[in-house]
């Protein structure tokens, strides 16, 4: 079998697996659904942190905007469940992207750790504001409309919508990283001043990248809000201490700045978490902190980064013989 045929076979096989997974292991549908969500998190974070070199600690902001925008639309529009969810999710994505474009005017001018801490501030401020704003239920949060159908149907519905979103995110980024735009992102990461001197419109590039990342995150927020069923300002929508940190961690664990790294990181992280964390009871978050420190200090290249260093030939680069 040729290399090409093997690839097609692998793609078809994993496609079938994705379609069949909820029927093969019906007990784990929710976990699989969250896995897709994690993959969206890691991919969108890596678009900024890995490819563009802007390490955002506040991407959770867009997730929360999407969740709230969709829930408010579902509450006020008076449409049927599916119509309201579809339009609400689109609205969430667009609003999140618009917020990114607007905030980007000021924030994207910051570099390095100033960007990191500025975005961290934005994410937490958003949670605090949502927690005090009566229009979105203030501290008691928002509930979303009930799913019109059986429980099994509900979990299948969210499994396939989130799988579709993760796939759409992945394919969009895969296509994007192969274009001039992707190269330009990497140029900004490697040396922003030189990139600008070479004639790249860095401000536009950064805004476009952040908006794109925010768009997918906004949609994922809208879907996740409905999947969880209840939107708490600090523990679901703007959950900086869980989702917000996981995004960064998964992308780094898998390998920053690669296409597959975030996917692998998300899968490894999510599976580990599901298997081991129930045994840790209240100590999960302590373990999470320790994990961050350990990964950042001892394993900053991530899984793919380390493999690439060990086997450069497999990644398309030639090893130089000294």
């Amino acid at each position, binding site marked *: 079998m040729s290399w090409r045929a093997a690839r097609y076979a692998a793609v078809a096989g994993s496609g079938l697996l994705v379609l069949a997974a909820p029927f093969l292991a019906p007990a784990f549908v929710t976990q699989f659904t969250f896995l897709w969500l994690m993959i969206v998190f890691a991919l969108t974070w890596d678009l900024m942190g890995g490819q563009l070199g802007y390490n955002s600690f506040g991407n959770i902001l867009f997730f929360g905007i999407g969740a709230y925008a969709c829930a408010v639309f579902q509450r006020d529009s008076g449409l049927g469940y599916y119509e309201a969810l579809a339009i609400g999710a689109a609205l969430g994505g667009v609003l999140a992207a618009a917020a990114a474009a607007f905030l980007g005017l000021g924030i994207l001018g910051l570099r390095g750790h100033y960007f*990191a801490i500025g975005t961290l501030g934005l994410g937490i401020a958003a949670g605090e504001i949502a927690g005090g704003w009566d229009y979105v239920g203030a501290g008691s949060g928002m509930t979303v409309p009930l799913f019109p159908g059986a429980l099994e149907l509900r979990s299948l519905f969210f499994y396939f919508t989130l799988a579709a979103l993760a796939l759409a995110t992945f394919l969009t980024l895969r296509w994007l990283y192969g274009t001039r735009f992707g190269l330009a992102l990497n140029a900004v990461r490697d040396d922003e001043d030189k990139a600008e001197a070479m004639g790249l419109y860095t401000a536009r590039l950064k805004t476009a990248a952040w908006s794109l990342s925010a768009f997918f995150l906004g949609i994922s927020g809208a879907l996740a809000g409905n999947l969880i069923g209840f939107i708490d300002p600090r523990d679901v929508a703007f959950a900086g201490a869980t989702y917000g940190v996981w995004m960064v961690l998964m992308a780094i664990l898998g390998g920053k700045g690669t296409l597959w790294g975030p996917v692998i990181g998300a899968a490894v992280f999510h599976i580990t978490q599901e298997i081991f964390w129930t045994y840790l009871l209240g100590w999960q978050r302590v373990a999470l902190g320790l994990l961050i420190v350990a990964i950042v200090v001892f394993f900053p290249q991530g899984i793919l980064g380390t493999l690439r260093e060990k086997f450069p030939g497999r990644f398309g680069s030639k090893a130089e013989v000294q």
Partner: protein
Amino acid sequence: MIDNFLLLFDYPVLSADLALNGLLIGAVFVLAAFGMALVWGVLNIINIVQGEFVMLGGFVALMAAEAGLPVLLGIPIAALALFILGWGLYRLVIFRVIDRDLFVSVLATFGLSIVLQQLSNELFGADVRTLEAGLGTLLLFDGAVALAQIKVLAFFLALGLGLLLWLFLKYSRLGQAIRATAQNPRAASILGIDTDRVYAATYALNAALCGAAGGLVVMAWAIHPYIGLPYTVRSFLIVIVAGIGNIGAVVAAGLGLGAFENVAGFIFGTEYQIALVFLLMVLVLVWRNLRLQRKRMYLK
């Protein structure tokens, strides 16, 4: 919101009360900001654990009081305990991230802050705790402005510690070594300064400062395990406004931030106070950066 704003003008005494109380808490921010400026200037690390040191200092003071020791003795005990913790953290983690790029150190200290936060949540519980120092209340303007004496004590103690720190850096041998290392670590080590020890001492000293600040916070206000991050952001905000090497500016910025927070918290509602601090930080960053961008530069 507008009503509250107008109220400040109708009752100037209320404004004075808010602003004074704010200035007093500002002194504690100054203490934490000194520590952050020290670590930033010497180790070139932005220490996200800062606020957790404050929080832990508070819990140590609380435990010391519960063990039957005089309440005010809790402050030096907190400083000492945090000094040891800071030294330990340096030896375990921080020394590994000093020469790495800033993202690594920000994320590593962020991870440490989660660890400490969650550990104290498990160990001490999530309740809001406070410690009664047993001091009275100071009445000003015929009793219109009430200041708890412990807050006044905290104010002067914080500023006194700041002065001590300055004297220590200026005249003591270790202080001079710290300043030399901040200027040029390579040259300092050529001249026989053990820079690794200087880094460890600086980091531990920072933790001790925060610990003392935490002891004051638990007596004059309150603490809980999740109080850390706002203190980190406040120190960061003060340092970016004031600059790293400028002690007078740090004091002014810290006191100003305290007063601003209290007055703004009153106008917009205390539920937004934390959000205001974070937004103010973002605005200050963006504003400073925009001014630099006119000269084709950016914040470094």
